[in-house]
């Protein structure tokens, strides 16, 4: 009897492991198989993976006297990780809708993610997804997937994301748009729409 229970538990664990992304020691996901394929096809790849410890370490080198660096430091302090991928392609058609769906599924699994924005242009194939992970009513993760004709970007921020700090980052180009997302995550009109319209420098900082 005990062996049967053990087998069931192991079986369930196996299923859970199979659907959830493997995690590195820093809590960030391991690169999905799709990303490796994208990197192979891309003409330019930027990959940044920063765990909690590395973020804390980097924060020490942000100049507190510089307004923007101070804002950056405040933003990243307390975060559990930042995972960014940017793939640029020489021509269109280097990834498919199936690839996009695999990426969404991969990053969405293993937590309570709410879709804030889902836009898909069936003609051009461009897709934008924004998801937030809410823990006790507070944003505890932000995922953005932006797929354009020749560029595909993934942004994953884990931990207590301070939206108001993100909007103050004018030194890195201003992220004021996130104020709107914050409003949406708290119950305003959802932008989930699936519209039918009539068409490599690696800088990995893994710990």
């Amino acid at each position, binding site marked *: 009897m005990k062996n049967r229970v053990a087998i069931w538990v192991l079986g369930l664990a196996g299923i859970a492991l199979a659907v959830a992304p493997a995690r590195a020691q820093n809590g960030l996901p391991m690169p999905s198989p799709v990303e490796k394929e994208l990197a192979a096809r891309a003409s330019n790849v930027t990959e940044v993976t920063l765990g909690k410890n590395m973020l804390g370490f980097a924060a020490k080198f942000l100049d507190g006297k510089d307004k923007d660096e101070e804002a950056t430091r405040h933003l990243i302090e307390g975060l559990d990780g930042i995972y960014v991928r940017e793939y640029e392609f020489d021509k269109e058609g280097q990834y498919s809708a199936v690839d996009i769906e695999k990426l969404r599924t991969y990053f969405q699994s293993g937590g309570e993610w709410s879709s804030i924005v889902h836009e898909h242009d069936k*003609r*051009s194939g461009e897709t934008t997804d924004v998801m937030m992970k809410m823990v006790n009513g507070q944003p505890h993760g932000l995922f953005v997937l932006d797929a354009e*004709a020749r560029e595909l970007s993934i942004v994953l921020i884990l931990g207590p994301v301070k939206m108001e700090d993100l909007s103050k980052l004018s030194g890195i180009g201003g992220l004021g748009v996130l104020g709107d997302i914050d409003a949406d995550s708290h119950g305003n009109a959802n932008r989930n729409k699936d519209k039918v319209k009539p068409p490599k420098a690696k800088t990995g900082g893994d710990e």
Partner: protein
Amino acid sequence: MAHNWQPDFEKLVDEHQSMVFSLAWRMTGDRGLAEEVAQDVFLELDRHMTRIESPEHALNWLRRVAMSRSADALRRRRVRGVDLWVEIEEKHGSPAEERQSPLETRLEQLLSTLPEAQRAALILRYQEDMTPEEIASAVETPLATVKSNLHRGLKLLRAKATTNLKEYIRGL
């Protein structure tokens, strides 16, 4: 002599800006957008200068990128529920070039009403004197598809022109 040839950015702009601008204008139907596209194309050329090996390479590269960026610009401009061709036709209703005959002006306007792929093929054929093989390479499309687009586009344009010419003559 290709070994001795060094690309000079400003000279390339002087030599090819009209070509790039014309391609972009005829593809997008929007003068302002065509200027933006042309600008982007040359700035991209600046980033790729080290890879340009000869004057012919520069010309082909510019044609290919101009067509590609024009298509991108058209895609971005698409407005839901509005027939883009109608929009282009309205924009093309601007005063004709003095050197053009009314029929030539009308032909150019009719060109803008064709589907994008056919329009692209005809522009490269008749503006740039490219062969179907060269067009296929520039727009990264199979040769058979290019020939089909040329054939269908020309046929459609003839039909439209014939109808319009009759109306034009009737209006004289």
